[in-house]
């Protein structure tokens, strides 16, 4: 049992650890930049003081230097505290996962599983812009520490500004993540600039458009000449053009495409799957449960796949695979095995011994729930399943 829990962690919890790790990594880089800049400033000052002609002058410079050193100490300590906070987040996530693998108490296991479901749902809600539901759920489920809402919320603000035709926050984001975006050969930044260029043409500011293109588009990396030329041709067209190719460039939909491109880059940058985990686990779960009985007259009231809405949802998915018999009593829903032997009634229907004995004890007769035929308990015969 323990190892199966551990393998669930391996298959499902990558982002739970990787996302806070990436944040920690990013904060480290930011801190290192600050530290290096401050240190180089301080070193310059040190050299300047050392170059002063007399010890007297040097001594006079010391109080000011002391101020600088103290303020550096404060900045550096701040950086360390912040990093510590993000490291604690990673640590907390790992502890949360360890809770599942090391604990075997059924009650706390049920609580953990409920948190896992809540977490998977929150992820689905955030990806589908159901922000209010997600936030409410995080609050009522007490799962603040194991979900990454900030990432999506800050993404939402950028998306909203794009919808309002404001590229500044998104460009700022590109700037902050430049090195990572370069690695993935992202075209987001170029597309943003192109959009600004198009908007300038739309407002008939042709000179401004050319200047903008000179400044931002020519320099853009990973940018093919063809594409740049294609964009420059726009100068010759009016927004009302009927030419398909250029009409598309003027279209309002391009803003929506930018939103989607930003979202995809944001997920990729944070190692989030492009699909929600909910869709993945639902599909594998439905397949693992799905049997041919679910689509016959043998439906069970408690089986998720037998009932709507999952019955329809599971229709295109594969059935479960079975090479080893696993029998369930249709009366009690309990497994039939050596402790609850399968018994055949004279009409061929098999039920668990426990359920039949109980029925005999309460009603004095055994009624086959499928055919309503009545039998004595001793008419039932044992069935041996290998």
């Amino acid at each position, binding site marked *: 049992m323990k190892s199966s829990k*551990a*393998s669930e*962690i391996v*298959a499902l919890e*990558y982002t739970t*650890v*990787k996302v806070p*790790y990436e944040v920690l*990594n990013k904060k*480290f880089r930011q*801190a290192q930049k600050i530290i290096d800049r401050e240190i180089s400033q*301080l070193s310059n000052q040190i050299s300047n*003081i050392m170059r002063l002609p007399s010890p007297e002058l*040097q001594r006079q410079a010391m109080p000011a230097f002391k101020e600088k*050193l103290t303020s550096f100490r404060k900045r550096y*300590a701040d950086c360390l505290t912040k990093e510590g906070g993000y490291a604690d987040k990673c*640590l907390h996530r*790992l502890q949360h*996962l360890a809770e599942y693998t090391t604990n075997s108490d059924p009650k706390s296991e049920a609580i953990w*599983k409920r948190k*896992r479901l809540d977490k998977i749902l929150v992820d689905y809600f955030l990806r589908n*812009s159901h922000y*209010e*539901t997600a936030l*409410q759920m995080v609050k*009522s489920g007490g799962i603040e520490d194991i979900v990454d809402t900030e990432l999506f919320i800050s993404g939402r603000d950028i998306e909203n500004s794009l919808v309002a035709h404001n590229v500044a926050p998104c460009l700022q984001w590109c700037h902050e993540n430049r090195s990572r975006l370069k690695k993935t050969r992202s075209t987001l930044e170029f597309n943003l600039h192109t959009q600004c260029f198009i908007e300038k043409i739309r407002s008939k500011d042709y000179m401004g458009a050319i200047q903008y293109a000179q400044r931002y588009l020519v320099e853009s990396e990973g940018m093919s000449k063809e594409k740049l030329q294609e964009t420059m041709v726009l100068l010759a067209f009016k927004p009302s053009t009927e030419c398909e190719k250029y009409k598309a460039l003027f279209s309002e939909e391009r803003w929506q495409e930018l939103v989607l491109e930003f979202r995809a880059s944001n997920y990729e940058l944070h*190692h989030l*799957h492009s699909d*929600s985990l909910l*869709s993945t*686990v*639902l*599909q*594998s*779960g439905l397949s*693992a*449960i799905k*049997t*041919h*009985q679910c689509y016959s007259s043998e439906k069970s*009231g*408690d*089986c998720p*796949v*037998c009932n709507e809405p999952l019955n329809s*949802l599971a229709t*295109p998915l*594969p059935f479960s*695979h*079975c*090479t080893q018999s*696993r*029998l*369930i009593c249709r009366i009690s829903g309990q497994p039939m095995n050596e402790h609850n032997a399968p018994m055949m009634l004279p009409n061929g229907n*098999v039920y668990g011994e426990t359920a039949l004995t109980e029925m005999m*004890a*309460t*009603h004095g007769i055994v009624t086959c729930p499928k055919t309503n035929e009545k039998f004595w308990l001793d008419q039932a*015969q044992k069935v*041996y399943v290998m």
Partner: protein
Amino acid sequence: MDAVSVLQKEFCKVNSKHKELQEGLSNLDDLVAAVENNQDLDCNWYLNQVKTELTNISVSHKDWHGSISRFGKVIDKQLTENVSFFTNRDLISGRNSQLLHQLICEHFLRQGNLELVEKFVQDSGHKLEECKKRPFVDLNQIVGSLRKRDLLPALKWCENNRPALKKRGSSLEFMLHRLNFISLIKERNTAGALQYAQILGQFVETHKKQLQRLMGSLLYVSTGIENSVYRDLIDPQHWSDICDLFTKEACSLMGLSKESPLSITVDAGCKALPALNSIRQVMEAKQLWGLKDELPCEVDLGPSCQFHSLFACPILRAQCTKSNPPMRLECGHVISNDALKRLAISNKVKCPYCPQETSPSEAKQIYF
């Protein structure tokens, strides 16, 4: 060692390095203090000291990155990044996302979290009919009272739904009355219990044995039920059982399953994914994925996630179907019809599991 332990161990290194950095702050403090207290400080010497310490800070902070990035690599190695390999990306879209939203709403309603349902309906634009909501609100109230050991609302509910419960052969109402009776016995209130027995009398036909036991317990009221053979009657477990029984009955009257289908399915999926993931490479190499109408491997979800009997013929190692049903031989062993035909030699078949020999026509088709 499992993945989490490995990760924890690796992260300890990240943490301890960071602690060292924080401890290093005291060197800076010393340097700040030195210039403050000392009037005849050798400035050149002092500034060189500061310079060394600053280089030291920059280098050791940079060094910390080593353990961070190692931790990142261990994550990549220990945990699987992408398990959506066989997911049908378009499954949850259009009409299907409506189905999913219906499922999510029902899940929240079951939990009695009405506020969340409201928010979800607002956010997703899902149309939830009021008539679907109502029964859950009532149900949650009744379960709430049961948890507080208040049986009245549940009994009232039984009264309103008596014909339907009777048709199901439900013992819910009897069990509720039984708890009331047991409470009276526990309080050593013989007179009250005797009076209550009148109510129990109406269940004599359906629950004769249990009723006899309850009445038998009356003999021990004065000497204390906890010391008698009837002590199991006062087990507090009965109170949590009654909540389960009530939910089960109420849900099935509403045509719903006992557990939330969403949480069962997600749980099953979490159990199934590791198994599917482990044979992924084989499947991808042979390009078998998606060709079959069945999952490529067996996933044992345990009894809590199994709702139907699955019978696999032990001879053919394949699941039985309508065209190849399971057959019980005279001796009680079960094999599939196709296997039976294969094993039969001139109207005789020897059971593969015991010495008995019968005619194939005596084998009987069975239904699990």
